[in-house]
C-alpha cells in the first residue's frame, strides 16, 4: 500500500535518493515543478514510461494538491 509523505518526509527522502515524479499533464509540469522532479503524466503511466524510474530507489508522486 502506498504511504503518504508530507513536506519534511519528502525533503528527507529526496536527500536519501528518492525520485520525484510529477504526474500532472506536461503543460503544467513545464510551467512549474519541484526541483529535480521528472514528469510522467498519470495518463501516460505504463510499463514503458516507468522504465525511466529506478526500481531500487523510493518513488514519490505528486500532483497539484489534494484535489
Amino acid at each position, binding site marked *: *500500500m502506498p504511504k503518504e509523505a508530507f513536506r519534511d518526509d519528502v525533503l528527507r527522502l529526496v536527500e536519501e535518493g528518492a525520485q520525484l515524479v510529477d504526474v500532472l499533464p506536461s503543460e503544467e509540469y513545464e510551467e512549474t*515543478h519541484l*526541483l529535480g522532479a521528472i514528469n510522467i503524466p498519470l495518463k501516460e503511466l505504463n510499463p514503458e514510461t516507468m522504465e525511466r524510474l529506478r526500481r531500487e530507489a*523510493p518513488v*514519490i508522486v505528486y500532483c497539484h494538491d489534494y484535489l
Partner: protein
Amino acid sequence: MSPRAAWRLEGMGFTEVYDYPPGKADWSASGLPMEGTQANGPTIGDAARRDVPTCSPAETVGAARERTWKAGWDRCVVVSKERVVLGLLREKELDADPEATAEEAMRNGPATFRPDEPVEKMAKRMRERGASAILVTTPEGKLMGLLSRENAQRLAAKTGNLG
C-alpha cells in the same frame, strides 16, 4: 490524481512508493525550490526580511520595545515557541504600558501571506491598500519574514513591472 499514480506504480512492482498529497501547492507555498517557465519570477519570500524582531507572548512590551528599537525596527512579531505568528506589536502597541505582556498589547491575527506570491502583484496590492508591511509565513503559519512595501516595490522595479 497522485494517489492513483502511487497505486499504479505499486501494481507495476515498485516496492517503496509515496504519495505527497499536498503536492506542488504546498511545496511552492513553503518557499521550496521550483523549476519551470513560470518559476523564476521574484516572490515575496525572496524580498521578505528574515531578521524581523520577534518576541514571545509572555515577554513584556518594554523588553520587546527595547530590543526592537535597538535593532532599528518599528515593529515586533509575537510568535509561539514554534514560531507560529500570534500577533504584531506595531509602533502604537510598542508604546503601550511597558509592564503589559506582548499578548495583552498585541494586535491579534495579523494578515499573513505565503512566500510564493509574485512580488510585483503584492507591491501593487500593498500600494493600493496603503499597507506598509506584511508578514510572510509558511502554510502552517510559521514566520518567515516581514516584507516592507519599499522592498516589494524595489524588487518589482528590478523586474521592470511595478504592477
